[in-house]
Every structure is written in C-alpha cells, then in structure tokens.
C-alpha cells in the first residue's frame, strides 16, 4: 500500500484515511491502548519477575499487593504475569483466526456476489451446508483426525468464521455490482480480477473492518470453549478467556481474579470497536472523497 506512484488515487486514499482517522479521538485512543496491550503481551518476560506457571501453593489466592500487583490465583500464580502471557494467546488466536476467515471469506463472498447467477447459488448453498454443521462436532472430528494442535485451532475457528464473512461480503457486492462505477470499469474493459480487487473490495472495506473488529473478541472467547473441549491451549498456559472463566467461578471468594481480566478484555473489545468505527469512516471511499 505504500507504492505511492502506482496510481494517484490509491495513495491519496490511504493518506486521506489516515488524516481522517487522526481526527477521531476515540479511534486513536483505541489504537494506542491496543498497541500498548500488544506490546505488553509480547514483552511479558521483561515486565514481570514471575513465570506464568510458577506456583506458590502456600500463598494461595491473595489479593493485590506490592509484590503481586493484581494478586495471585488459587495456586499462588501471579495474576499480572498470567494476564500478560494470556494476552499473547488471545491476540495470537484472535488475529490469526480472523485473518484465516478474511482470506477465505472475502474472496469467496466477492466472487459469489460478482459472478452471480448459478455460480452464486451453488457457492452460497455450500456455505449454507457448512453453516448447518454443528461447531462442536466439527471440532471434535478435527481433534480426532488431526490430534491436538494450536494451528488446528486457528483453522477450526477460521473455518467457521469465514462463512458469515462470505455472506456479508456477497450481500454488499451484489448491491455494488450494479453501480455506475463498476459498469464504467466494465466498459473500459477492466478484467474481472481487477474489478473485484481494485473497485469492489475497497468499497466493502468498511464492512470488512467493522466485522473484523467484532470477530476478534468473539474468537478470543471461542478459544476458551475450545480449550474446555481439550482442543485449545492446555494448562498451565493461560488466555484471557480462561482467566475470565476461572475468575467467574470463584468470583464470590476471590473477586480480583475476575475483575482485572474482565477489565482488560473489555478494554480490548472497546478499543477494537472504536478503532473499527473510526477506520470505517476513514476508509469508506464515498465518505472520504466527499470531505477532502
């Protein structure tokens, strides 16, 4: 996207978008928070003297203190450390699985909607069929066939999420296909590939981004469910979803075990939504052109 000389239009689109985004304070705050959280998770070993699996059974669950900023869990493990390491898992799963769903869902939906007719029907019926497959059963089948594997988890989640993505994109493309600028492109003689990827997809980018910001938190929670079935991560590794689930079950006795993971998770979710909102406004070609 930095090849500025290729087309004037394109480079200005990105620059305009960035200008637009910077004006949106909530989006920028979200972006900053997300960057901080990601860096903190990535740099976990530098930020904490404890390891995520080191237990102090005699200490047990202790409330926040000077030595343990967020307290310790029932096995005496430092919650701050587990939160940082959990962030690694959650971001990794959230981002990877969402990318998988985008890579499959966007082209699939775009092609289906653009080509239309019988191809469209067939492609959408395939989505319908896959959609009826119960997620739990699919996961258990995958687990039995391929064994336990974190990559498999991305695949499993991605394989479910792309269906919704494909449907949404198709709906949008169906509407765009009839618009004047697409017809103009066809008239000029642009190839189908060029029309889809240069003209149509930029126009649905807003929807894609908003939906992505919604998908990431959902995928993070889904990981908890998969871990519960034995497919996801295994203890003593942590993830935000697992920390929240564990915390919720002991919330009356040890409330701090729920509060801080829940705050961090909500913060991530809000940040992503604000950022997504901002990005949608900034990236929508119709929108930005009207203003700049």
């Amino acid at each position: 996207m930095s090849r500025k000389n290729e087309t004037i239009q394109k480079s200005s689109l990105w620059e305009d978008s960035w200008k637009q985004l910077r004006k949106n304070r909530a989006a920028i705050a979200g972006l900053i928070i997300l960057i901080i959280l990601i860096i903190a998770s990535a740099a976990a070993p530098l930020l904490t003297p404890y390891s995520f699996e080191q237990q102090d059974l005699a200490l047990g669950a202790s409330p926040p203190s000077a030595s343990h900023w967020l307290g310790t869990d029932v096995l005496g493990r430092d919650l701050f450390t587990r939160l940082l390491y959990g962030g690694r898992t959650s971001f990794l799963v959230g981002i990877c699985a969402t990318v998988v769903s985008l890579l499959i869902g966007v082209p699939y939906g775009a092609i289906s909607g653009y080509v239309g007719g019988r191809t469209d029907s067939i492609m959408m019926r395939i989505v319908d069929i896959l959609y009826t497959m119960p997620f739990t059963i699919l996961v258990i089948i995958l687990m039995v066939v391929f064994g336990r594997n974190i990559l498999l988890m991305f695949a499993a989640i991605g394989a479910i999420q792309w269906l919704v993505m494909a449907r949404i994109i198709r709906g949008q493309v169906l509407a765009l296909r009839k618009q004047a600028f697409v017809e103009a492109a066809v008239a000029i003689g642009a190839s189908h590939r060029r029309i889809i990827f240069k003209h149509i997809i930029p126009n649905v980018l807003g929807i894609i981004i908003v939906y992505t910001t919604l998908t990431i938190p959902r995928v993070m929670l889904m990981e908890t469910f998969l871990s519960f079935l034995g497919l996801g991560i295994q203890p003593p590794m942590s993830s935000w979803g697992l920390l929240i689930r564990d915390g919720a079950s002991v919330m009356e006795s040890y409330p701090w075990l729920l509060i801080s993971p829940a705050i961090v998770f909500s913060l991530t979710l809000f940040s992503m939504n604000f950022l997504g909102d901002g990005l949608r406004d900034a990236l929508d070609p119709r929108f930005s052109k009207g203003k700049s």
Partner: protein
Amino acid sequence: MNVKAPILLLCATAILASCAKRETPVEIGNREQILHRGIGTEPKNLDPQTTSGMPEFYIQSAVFEGLTAQQPGDSRPVPGTAERWDISPDGTVYTFYIRPDAKWSNGDPVTAGDFVFSYRRALSPALSNPYAYMLYCLKNGEAFSKGDITDFSEVGVKALDEKTLQITLNAPTPYFLRLLKHHSWFPVHPPTILKFGKIDDRDTKWTRAGNLVGNGPFTLTSWEPNRKVVVEKSQTYWDRDTVRLKEIHFYPIDDMHAEEYAFRTGQLHITGETPMERIKHYQENNPDVLKLEPLLGTYYYEINTQRPPFDDVRVRRALALALDREKIVNYVLKAGQPAAYHFTPPDTAGYTAQARIAFNVEEARKLLAEAGFPNGEGFPKIELLYNTHKGHMRIAEVVQQIWKENLNIDISLLNMEWKTYLTQKKSHKYSIARAAWIGDYEDPSTFLEMFITGGGNNDAAWSNPLYDQLLAKAGREMDKTKRFSYFQQAEKILMDEVPIIPIYFYRNKSLVHPAVKNWEPSLMDRHPYKYVYLEADE
C-alpha cells in the same frame, strides 16, 4: 374519595406484603416435613438395574428397599425387606424370610418370587446392567450373565415358598449381607416391568411417575426432567410408622456453585458438593452446616504399564515417590482429605493397609537415574490425561509442577470430556490418567479386585500372578484375619509395583441444614431416609 381509599389501602398492603420476608422452601419444609435435597446430575433413569450413578441411588434408596438395610451412621446390615435369615455353616447358602407385611406401593405383597425375577432381570445379558458383576457371587450368576447358560433355575436363587428365598453363593462371601444394600440387589415389581416391556428391556416407561411401583418407604410422585423429582411417604410400606418425612424433593443442579447458592438462599436442605473455594468460608463462618466426612473412595493416577517408559517399575516408583501429596491436600483440596500412601481407604470394614508408598525425593531421583534418566534427562514428553473438570485440572497443574521441581521432567496436560476420556483409558491410549474409585460395598475386595489380570477396570493393564492368587485365596477364605492378611500382602505388591499412584482419600463435602436430623456420617454416602426428620431450632 370513597372509591380511591380502599384501592390505596389495597396497594399499601400489597407493597407491605411484598416487602415482608417470604418464607423459603426450606422453612416451609421444616414445618411440613418436606426435605429438599440437591443431587447434582439429572438421574438417567430410576431403574435400579440399569443405572450406576449416585444421583440415581439417592432416589432409588427412597423408593426401593433391599433384603437388608442400615441404620443412620452405622453401616452394619440390619433386616430390611427380609425380617431374618439363616446362613449355612459353610457360609454359602443364605435363607431369607421376607416380612409377611412387606408390600409393594400398589398393595401387592412382596414375595420371594419377586426377588428371583429381579435377580434374573439384573443378570439378563440383554439388559446390560452395568452392575451385573455385583451378582456374580451367586452360583452360576456370571455364567448366566455372559450367556453361557440360559436356564435361570441353575443360578443360585430359589423361592422355597411365597416368603422364603434361598440364595446359594459360589464361595463364602463374608460381606454378602452388606452387598445386599446396593441398588443392584433391590427388588423390582414383576407385573409392572412386564406391563411395559419384556423382562430384559431397557429404558421402558415403567420408571415414569405414575407407573413405578416400589417397595421402599417412599413412592414416586412426579418427575420433571432437569427440575425436580418428588417422592412422598408410602402408605403401604411395612415400617411406615417410623417414616417421619412427608415428602422428599430431589433437585438436579449440575453446577456446584449454583447448588451452594440454592442452599444459601434456603432452597435446599442438603447439597451434594461444596465448591473448593467456599469451604474456607463455611469453616470460618458456619462450621455446623459443612459436613466433611470420610467417603469410601480413592483419587489416584493410573499409569499405562504397557507403554514405555512406564513398563519399567523404577520409573513408576520414581513418579510415585516424588509426589508431595501433603501439598495437594493442604493447599489445593483444603477440606481435610487425607493424603493417600496406599490404595484401599483406611478402615474399610476394619481393614487398613500396612503397605505404604512414601514421599521420598532422594530415592525417586536415584530410581529415575537407574532407569536411564539421570536428572530427568532424556525423559520423553508424556501427557497427563484427565476429564474436563476444574478440580482435576488444578490437581494436575500442581502435580505437573511437583514432578518438574522434584524430578526435572516435563509433562503436558490433556483434558477430554468424560466419554472420550473413558474411551482413551479403556483402549490404553494414554500414559498417565487421572482416575478415582468409590467402593461399591464395605470390603477391601471392592478396591483390590480392580487390578486382577484382565479386570474390567484395570486400565493400567497391569498383571501380577501372585497378586491374582492372593485375591483368589481371599475370595475363598472365611476367616477374617486370614482374609485380611491376604489383602495386606496383595496391597504390598500393588504399592511395590505402583501401576497406580494413590493421591488422596475422598471426603464427602456436603452442606446440611441444621434442621435435618438423623443424617449421620456414612462411608458409602448412604442415609436411610426413613429415620430422617426435620426440626428447626427455635
């Protein structure tokens, strides 16, 4: 004004009434003798001959009664539906005399023929009763159950007349009268069974409310799936004058936190479980309601003795010796469970094993080095399998850490949902797995017989001819001292070869409302309802 005043008054009363504290089900129950009991999981069925769980037993023991019964807080068998019995001098023939006034809930008399029918049903191959093996002590019982013989008259159960039942056993079974308290020995009402299907049909409608006919102190009134099961006092039970409760309501509440909440808000008199995290709270604030009582069960890790490196006894011993059980019971369980250094729970019908597997890290390291893994080097990455449950996960995490610290070996944890976990274990596709055994009757044999060669629950695939011999000898022996000495020797072998690593002995962790009387500690979690009554302290 005239019209408005009464309306205002009405509103005020309504508001006041809604503010006043409403009587909880427990308070109403205390007044009306209605017991509310949490039973954990929804019962699969109420048929005593096709079920194996405790939730089912909690209800079955109210609705049915075996030949023998027990008193609160005393596991010794007392006359139940049989008023007395004779035992032949060699201990293999029992003659039971059924009470003349024993009646089914529809008024039919309970006859010896009903018991013959019931035991035939329990052993029918087509019924696939999970507890059929409990009746294998009957002469030819096993052969009939496995389909080797089809003529039930060859099995050692005979009705001598309407009220006299003769039972012939393979061998003297000193704990036979205790065995009869188990639900697999409960009688069922033949006409009811036959009305809804054949003798060996599973899951027919005979156990539905309205259909079910039992001989116990209570009868089934209603069963709302996933909500509650209600039983009420039977009007035909022979000892109905003793029964003081009017009704018992059983609530299947899977989530123990929800169950605890229900107890706290006056919905339940008795819970099945107490969450680990709440135990401290009750110990400090309300110690009277928390009942932490010994239960006849052992929590252990099972080792697949066929899979290297665990085919080497030194490796198994090293793992067992390096396990700091006190850490687990003191810091994780925290409900006073005793750490287990042997397999059979202490004082099982008077038997306490002398064999011990110690906690000795030095020795463990030495053995591991001898087996070719000095300081854990080269030890393969193995998996510890457990069924998905928070309690199991915590123990596994601690064990993982302890072995890492003491032996410098890495194990990874693997959780699976219950059915997959069982399949993996049965097909020996595991290295180390979490397991537990709750005794079926009060005798060491219910624990030690698990590990005979080819035993149905011997998932460790362990085999030792001497061990098998000792248990066979104990099975034939009448003399208690000699029997127990065979068990001692057998348990010594088990603890020397450690196909299993005992971790702790179970505790019953229920919450019991102070108004519940005659609810005494029971090793087998058996509380005869007919003596229970409710009396709120003023």
